[in-house]
């Protein structure tokens, strides 16, 4: 009967498998390090320092205490412009100061009736604005955010970070403190016709407060 010879008890370490395993561990730790760093990263969101003088903005967003917001843009200007013309025709017998008061009252009433939106509509409005801005890199928008004192400032950050995500960075923003009452109590709301930088005539809404 034939017996097998005794096997060598000192077998060689399988280097190929060992290297495989080490590489897998190495890749695992490399990936893990990256993930850990991503989760703790602090970032900086720049906001222009407000200047206390008459300013211009294509869009004004006034936040309200109940979470709703007032959104004033070209559409609001068009609404007011139409009303101003009608008032001028119908109340031509009034003195200039009375006519101005009448126009301001009517304009404010329309602005506050037609341009206050629910909190859940904010995202849609911002998306729409970004879509327009992204479709034309040469366009530039300045959005002015007004917020009451009590609002947690992360709500402002939420809006600004969305505006900051414009593809061509052509939506600028700024924020100031202020309440809806400032607009409600405005003594002068009017539509002024000005020329833009391309020389085109534009109707602009002017609210003094």
């Amino acid at each position, binding site marked *: 009967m034939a017996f097998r010879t005794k096997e060598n008890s000192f077998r060689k370490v399988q280097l190929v498998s060992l290297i495989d395993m080490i590489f897998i561990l190495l890749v695992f730790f490399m990936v*893990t*390090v990256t993930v850990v760093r*991503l989760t703790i990263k602090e970032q900086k*969101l720049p906001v222009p*320092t407000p200047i206390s003088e008459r300013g211009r903005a294509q869009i004004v967003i006034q936040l309200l205490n109940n979470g709703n917001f007032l959104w004033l843009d070209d559409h609001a200007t068009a609404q007011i412009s139409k009303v101003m013309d009608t008032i001028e025709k119908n109340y031509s017998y009034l003195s200039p100061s009375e006519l101005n008061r009448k126009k301001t009252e009517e304009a404010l009433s329309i602005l506050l009736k037609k341009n206050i939106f629910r909190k859940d509509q904010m995202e849609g409005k911002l998306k729409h604005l970004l879509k327009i801005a992204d479709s034309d890199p040469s366009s530039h928008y300045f959005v002015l955010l007004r917020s009451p004192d009590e609002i*947690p*400032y992360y709500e402002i950050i939420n809006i600004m970070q969305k505006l900051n995500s414009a593809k061509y960075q052509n939506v600028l923003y700024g924020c100031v403190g202020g309440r809806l009452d400032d607009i409600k109590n405005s003594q002068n709301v009017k539509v002024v016709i000005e020329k833009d930088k391309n020389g085109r005539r534009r109707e602009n809404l002017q609210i003094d407060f």
Partner: protein
Amino acid sequence: MAFKKQNELHDLEFPSLIDVIFLLLIFFLVTMQFSITTDTAHQTSTKPPDIQLPLAEGSENVAMDDIISTLLFQIQYKEKNNPNSPRLVYVLEPFNGDSISRGEAFMIAKRDSLFAEFPQNFLKMKDQEFKNTTACRLISNAIFQYKAEHFHKPSIENTVEIRAEANVEFKIINYIMQECSAYKDTIPRVIFRTLAKTRG
């Protein structure tokens, strides 16, 4: 003279290869440990208490983690994670113009009493009354002093940073911005510190 013919095909030096790989492995292991330590280091005494920053995407990364390179106002709750407790403001700034870690700046602010508490009813205060609070005067003086010492001419690089709990009221933030606006072009930007959204 007899020459010994050398073997042209050497075997791969596996022990050296494994040494190098192990070194890399240990390096990454150690690096990962440090990252985690940084994240949870608020438990140590040299770190300021961590605060819940608002989340934001698309903002610029902070160049180096936890380094203070300009005037920074840190606004936090007096009691950790309690939004009903009073708000505290800490003035953190580089030491003698050199960047320092946020932990060190926080310790210096504590040591030099560069912090103040906002009154509980600050939201109901009128503007003038609010401006006269210790916290507002601290903010105002810090901006004035820092501007005088460091912002000698208008530049986009002149910034003041705000690092605040996400639920801090806009009134405090707005006050800091208004104080900066007093210097118009000299401080053209205020920077909000935010957290990047996590990916896991």
